[in-house]
């Protein structure tokens, strides 16, 4: 039986109640909007880039505890990372929340609290929305939807 406490860990609840970097970066170099039309979750990611490196990152939006905390922790984790590092992190995070990799030894640090999501397939999209949006922002910006054609999370719905 899936464990609710495993899904709603204290770190997740803390970030959903008091999201970090929850602000607009007025002078953002990049921004992208993410949207999950199935549940109405919305997130906007703002980036400042220093060459290939993320020098500042923030978000705004509304969503459930999982999507809000995921966006919040994302902003803490990717600050200072290069684009390639952020991409690689997303890949490993994706494997974690879809159950392809175990939290132990994933070397994901704080992101490991999302390991419980893999037991709740309907919630995978909540955890990955901010990451898809970050990816879009790094690629130049625009709008992403979890219902896009090339969405690899569709099967996880």
């Amino acid at each position: 039986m899936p464990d609710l406490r495993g899904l709603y860990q204290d770190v997740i609840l803390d970030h959903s109640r008091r999201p970090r970097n929850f602000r607009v970066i007025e002078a953002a170099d990049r921004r992208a909007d993410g949207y999950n039309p199935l549940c109405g979750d919305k997130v906007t990611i703002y980036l400042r880039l220093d060459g290939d490196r993320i020098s500042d990152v923030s978000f705004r939006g509304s969503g459930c505890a999982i999507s809000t905390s995921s966006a919040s922790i994302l902003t803490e984790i990717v600050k200072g990372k290069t684009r390639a590092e952020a991409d690689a992190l997303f890949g490993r995070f994706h494997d974690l929340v879809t159950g392809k990799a175990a939290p132990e030894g994933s070397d994901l640090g704080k992101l490991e609290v999302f390991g419980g999501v893999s037991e709740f397939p309907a919630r995978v999209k909540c955890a990955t929305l901010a990451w898809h949006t970050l990816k879009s922002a790094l690629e130049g910006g625009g709008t992403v939807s979890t219902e896009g054609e090339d969405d690899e999370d569709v099967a996880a719905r």
Partner: protein
Amino acid sequence: MATAATTTDWTSDTPSSNPAAFDVRRVREDFPILHQTVHGKPLVYLDNAATSQKPLAVIDAERDFYLRDNSNIHRGVHALSERATKAYEEVRVKVQRWLNAREPREIVFVRGTTEAINLVASSFGRRNIQAGDEILISAMEHHSNIVPWQILCEEKGARLRVAPISDRGELIFEEYERLLGPRTKLVATVHVSNVLGTINPVREIVAAAHRRGIPVLLDGAQAVPHLKVDVQQIDCDFYALSSHKIFGPTGVGVLYGKAEWLERMPPYQGGGDMIRSVTFEKTLYNAIPYKFEAGTPNIAATIGLGAAIDYVHRLGFDVLAAYERQLLAYATEQLSQIPGLRMIGTAKDKAGVISFVLEGIHAHDVGTILDQEGIAIRTGHHCAQPLMERFGVPATARASLAFYNTREEVDALVTGIGKVVELLG
């Protein structure tokens, strides 16, 4: 007695409209799916507005059709085809009597409410809507009663107008009347809101439109499970509904249309069964309703719909409605006592749909935690995004009742919400 009858006396009234006479435990025996555990807890199914569960009588009717009568309809001269055709057409008569339509030919079988509305948008719209015309809907429509009209308006250069609703979730009637103008060519509105549970004053809506010569389509998907619908009394021009919301199978629905409209409307889809004769030069269309029923329909599901109508009438529509009203009152009272819970939709006249939000907690999280308690509700925008915007919420949690739900299940919901608040509040 909670079993299906093969024939139903449509003229006699129901045995009793005293809800005390209604034995919910016995009725639940007719729904095998209800007797299971989910995540180790007894299933509490409160997602009836999404789809209702099916009684054995319906499941058996579909199965029996495939076991004994399966054949295509309106085509063969052989015994099976005649039996299948007869059974299929009998359901049309059942629907006609159930809705109190004048004639069986006013009953068109479609895939569901969505297709019924698309049929009218496509067929009626093609013939009757021109550039500059207006179609009037309400602010509480399901996407299926918004998007087909948007597509039509875009094609024709027509304009979609929206009648506003109050904070309680009731149509503001004066505003609605004010929007009925010389350019209005059709009113399309919902009978019972799938999000708010509001029962719209459809007789008054229709009368106001008819005074100005404007036809009215009603989306009855959420009304038919809760209300006795009489299309002649309402006097609507079109009425759309789905079988699966009234304890019948998915994949079949009904468009009721007044014969004088259906006669004048062009076909919806072309194909077999909708024609009288075909040459490469010219095709003559079949009479109504067949003109609108191209291709082989979902015959077994239609037979199942007939069984569902029989089942509901056997239990007694008034008895079911009275029981459900009591259950809704109980649920409303219990839920209103939860601190931080805000109900979305507090109309005076309501059916068994309760939408709510919890302060500081997203509906999605509510749904996940309740699911762990074996409680099935719907969370999200309920295919009514403009309505979510109207109430300033991204999503709601929605519990929707059927006559097989119990007070104990409402209590389980209240306890479950307590756990949500404990965990996330």
